[in-house]
C-alpha cells in the first residue's frame, strides 16, 4: 500500500536515471507576449474563458480504423497510425496486447450499463494462459485506476475518459459517446501495458484476466470506502503543507503542469470550436451547391457553367468532411486525453506533496519534542525513504511522460495538418469548367 521503491529503477532501462539528473522544464523564461496578431482575438471570435457548451462528444464512425493493436493491418491512412500508440521504450519487446471492443448494453431492474469486451494476448510467464477474454464495465476501470493510484501515488497513471459528459448530452449512451469512450478505454489499458512499472501491477493482471465473480471478490479485498474517504480529508490538509517545502525541481515541474494544463485546455476548446465551425460550414455548403443546379434549369447558355460551380462546391463539401474527420479522429481525442492527463498530473503533485508533508510534520513534532523521540526518529527514517522513493519515481516517470507527450502532440498536429492538406488538394479539381478556369487563372 505504501510506496514501493523496487520497480522503477530496475526495470526502466530506457529511462534516464531517476536520481538527480532529472531535466527541469525551463520554467524560468517569462511568457512571451501574444504573437502580435492580437487583432484576430477580438471578442467577436471567441471568448474561450467562459465555459463553453462545446464539451459534447462528437467522434465519427471509425470504420477506417482497426482497433486491434496486434493485428498486422497496414494503416489505411495516417490516422490509423495515431492509435497505434507510440511508446518508444522497447517497442519490439512488447509482450502484452490488449484490445477493447464490442460494447454491449445490459439492462437490469436497477440500472442500464455498458460492458466492453477486453481481449488480452500475452507471452508472459506469470499469466496462466496466452489469451484472455473478459467483459468489464466503466466502474471496473475506475476501480483499477484507483488501485493503481494507491499503489503508485507518484506515478503518472494514464487518465480515464470522463464519467459522464455533463453538458450537451441528451442520452447517456448514444453511439458517438460509446465509441469515443471505447477508444479512450482501449488507450487507457494500452498505456498501462506499456508503462514499465504499472504493467506488472497485480490488480492490472486481475483486471485483464479474472472472470466477473473473481473480480468482485478481489475488489472486496481492498481498503473499504470509508477508510479511503478518511484518508482524503487528511490528505488535503497535508498537501497544503507539502507545497511550502517543495524542492526546487518539483516547483518547476508544478509550474510546468499549471501552464501546460491551462494551454492544453485552451487547445481543447479551440479544437472543438473549430470542429463545430467546420460542421456548420459544411451544413451551409450542402445547401449552397444545389441552388446552382436549380438555377441551371432556367438557363441555357449558363447551364454548364452553373453545374461546374455546383460540382466545385460539392468538392468543397467533401473536403470539409475530411477535415472534420481529421480533427475528430486524430487531434481531438489526443488533446482531450492530455487535458485529462493534466488533471492527473495535478493529482500526482498533490500526492507527492502529501507524502512530503507527512515527513515534515513528523520532523516538526520531533523538534518540538511533543512525543516519544525514539518512535518518531524511527518513523521519520521510514518516511524519509518513502519520500525519496516517491520523488524518484515521479522524476523518472515525468521524463517518460514528457517524451510521450511531445511525440503524441507532434503526431496529432502533424496528422491533422496532413489531413487538411489532402482536403484542399482534393478540392482543386476544375471539372467540367476546366478550360475556362485555366484560362482565367492565366489571366490573373
Amino acid at each position, binding site marked *: 500500500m505504501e510506496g514501493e521503491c523496487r520497480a522503477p529503477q530496475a526495470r526502466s532501462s530506457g529511462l534516464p536515471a531517476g536520481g538527480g539528473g532529472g531535466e527541469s522544464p525551463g520554467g524560468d523564461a517569462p511568457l512571451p507576449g501574444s504573437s502580435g496578431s492580437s487583432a484576430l482575438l477580438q471578442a467577436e471570435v471567441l471568448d474561450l474563458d467562459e465555459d463553453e457548451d462545446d464539451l459534447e462528444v462528437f467522434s465519427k464512425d471509425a470504420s477506417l480504423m482497426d482497433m486491434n493493436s496486434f493485428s498486422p493491418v497496414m494503416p489505411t491512412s495516417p490516422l490509423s497510425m495515431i492509435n497505434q500508440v507510440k511508446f518508444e521504450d522497447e517497442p519490439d519487446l512488447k509482450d502484452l496486447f490488449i484490445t477493447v471492443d464490442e460494447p454491449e448494453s445490459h439492462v437490469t431492474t436497477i440500472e442500464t450499463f455498458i460492458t466492453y469486451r477486453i481481449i488480452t494476448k500475452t507471452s508472459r510467464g506469470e499469466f496462466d494462459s496466452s489469451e484472455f477474454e473478459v467483459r468489464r464495465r466503466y466502474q471496473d476501470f475506475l476501480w483499477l485506476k484507483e488501485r493503481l493510484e494507491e499503489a503508485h501515488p507518484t506515478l503518472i497513471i494514464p487518465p480515464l475518459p470522463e464519467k459522464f459528459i455533463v453538458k450537451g448530452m441528451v442520452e447517456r449512451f448514444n453511439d458517438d459517446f460509446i465509441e469515443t469512450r471505447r477508444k479512450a478505454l482501449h488507450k487507457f489499458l494500452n498505456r498501462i501495458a506499456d508503462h514499465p512499472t504499472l504493467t506488472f501491477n497485480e490488480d492490472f493482471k486481475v483486471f485483464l484476466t479474472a472472470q466477473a465473480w473473481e473480480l468482485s471478490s478481489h475488489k472486496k479485498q481492498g481498503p473499504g470506502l470509508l477508510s479511503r474517504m478518511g484518508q482524503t480529508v487528511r490528505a488535503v490538509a497535508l498537501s497544503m503543507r507539502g507545497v511550502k517545502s517543495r524542492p526546487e525541481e518539483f516547483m518547476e515541474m508544478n509550474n510546468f503542469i499549471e501552464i501546460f494544463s491551462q494551454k492544453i485546455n485552451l487547445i481543447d476548446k*479551440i479544437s472543438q470550436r473549430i470542429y463545430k465551425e467546420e460542421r456548420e460550414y459544411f451544413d451551409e455548403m450542402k445547401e449552397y451547391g444545389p441552388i446552382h443546379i436549380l438555377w441551371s434549369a432556367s438557363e441555357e447558355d449558363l447551364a454548364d457553367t452553373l453545374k461546374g460551380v455546383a460540382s466545385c462546391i460539392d468538392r468543397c463539401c467533401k473536403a470539409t468532411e475530411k477535415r472534420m474527420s481529421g480533427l475528430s479522429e486524430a487531434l481531438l481525442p489526443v488533446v482531450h486525453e492530455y487535458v485529462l492527463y493534466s488533471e492527473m498530473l495535478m493529482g500526482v503533485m498533490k500526492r507527492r506533496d502529501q507524502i512530503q508533508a507527512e515527513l515534515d510534520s513528523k520532523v516538526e513534532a520531533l523538534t518540538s519534542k511533543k512525543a516519544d523521540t525514539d518512535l518518531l526518529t524511527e518513523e521519520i527514517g521510514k518516511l524519509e525513504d518513502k519520500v525519496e522513493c516517491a520523488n524518484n519515481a515521479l522524476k523518472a516517470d515525468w521524463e517518460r511522460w514528457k517524451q510521450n507527450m511531445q511525440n503524441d502532440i507532434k503526431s496529432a498536429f502533424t496528422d491533422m495538418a496532413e489531413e487538411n492538406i489532402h482536403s484542399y488538394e482534393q478540392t482543386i479539381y476544375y471539372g467540367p469548367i476546366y478550360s475556362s478556369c485555366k484560362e482565367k487563372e492565366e489571366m490573373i
Partner: protein
Amino acid sequence: MEQALPDPERRLQPATLEPLGHPDAGLESAVGEEAEGARDEGPGDGTMMENNFWLKKIEISVSEAEKRTGRNAMNMQETYTAYLIETRSVEHIDGQSVLTDSLWRRYSEFELLRNYLLVYYPHIVVPPLPEKRAEFVWHKLSADNMDPDFVERRRIGLENFLLRVASHPILCRDKIFYLFLTQEGNWKETVNETGFQLKADSRLKALNATFRVKNPDKRFTELKHYSDELQSVISHLLRVRARVADRLYGVYKVHGNYGRVFSEWSAIEKEMGDGLQSAGHHMDVYASSIDDILEDEEHYADQLKEYLFYAEALRAVCRKHELMQYDLEMAAQDLASKKQQCEELATGTVRTFSLKGMTTKLFGQETPEQREARIKVLEEQINEGEQQLKSKNQEGREFVKNAWADIERFKEQKNHDLKEALISYAVMQISMCKKGIQVWTNAKECFSKM
C-alpha cells in the same frame, strides 16, 4: 482603397456621346419615345456608333466618395455621401485622356436619373442601381450606409451603372444623361421640367393591366416567368452565400487562437518550443488570409446582385407591354361596342341593353333626326377609334420589336457577364485551396520539427 476600375473583362466599351454641337439630338429622345423607337433598328450593339459622326470616346469614372452634411427639404441636418464623377475624353489617335468634366452627385440624383430613363425608355432594360441599403449581409459586414466598405462598394456599383448606360446604344444618347455627367447645378430642375413624373404609368394601372390582359405576347409572358425565377434563385443564392461566408470566417478566425496559445505554451517547452512558436505563426497567417478571400467574394456577390436587380428591370419592360396590350384590347373592345351600337341604331334592332333603348321604351321613340344625329356622332367616334386603334397597334408592334431587340442584347450581356463571374468564383475557390495547402504545408513542417 485606391480608385478601382472594374476589372478589364468587365469594362464595357465606352460609348460615344454626341458632340456639344447637337443638343437637340438628346432633347429629341427626351420627348418622343415613339420617334426613339422608330430610329433604332436591329440589335443595339456598339457598331452602330461608327456610322455616325462621333469623334470622341469617353471614359467615365466615379472616383471618390465624400461624406457631406447639409440641410434637406425639411430643413433638417442630414449626412449623406457624395460621389465624384469624372468624365474624360479619349483622343482616338494617341489614346491620351483629358479630363473634360467633373462633378459631385449623391445617390438620390442617380435614382432620379434612372427613374427618368425608365419613363422615357420603357422598351429598354434599364441598368439597375446598386442597392439602396445593404442586404444579404453576414455578420462582419455592416448594414450601415455610412460604413466605408459599403460606401466603397456602392461607389463601384454607381460607376458600373454609368458605364452600362454609356455603353447602351440608345441610352447613351440621352440628353439628360449627358447633362447628368456635365451639368452640376440645376440638373435636378432640368429633369423635373421634362415632366417625366407625370408621364409615368401608375402602379395601380399597371397592376390592373397585368391581371386583365387577355392576349399578351407569349414571349413576354415567358420572359416574366424567367425574370421571376431569376430573381428568386439569385436571392436564395445570395442569402446562402452570406451564411457560408459567415461560417467560413468563423473556421479561419478560430485558428488564430492556436497562434496565441502555441506561443504561450512554447515558453515552457524546450524542444517543442520552436516548432510550436513557428506553427503558431502559420496559424495566424491562415486566420488572417480569410479577410482578402471574403473581400473578393463580396465583389462576386455584387455582380450577382446586379443581375438580381436587372430581373426587376426585365419585369418593368414586360409590365409596359402588358399595359400597352391591355390598352389596345380596351380600345378594340370599345370600338367594337360602338360599332355595334351604330349598327343597332341603323337597323333598328336592339340586341344589347342600352340606356337609350331603355329611355326609348320609357319615354317613347326618338325622332329619325335625332337618330341620324346620333349615328353620325358614333360614326365619327368610330372613325377616330379606328385611327387610334391603328396607331396603338403600330405602337404596340414597334414596342415589341424594339423591346425584344434590347432583350436579346441584354440576354447576351447577361450570359457573358454571369459566365465570367461564375468562372471567377470557381477560380477564387481554387486559389483559396491553394493558399490553404501552402499554409498547412508550412504548419506541418513546423509540427514535425517539434
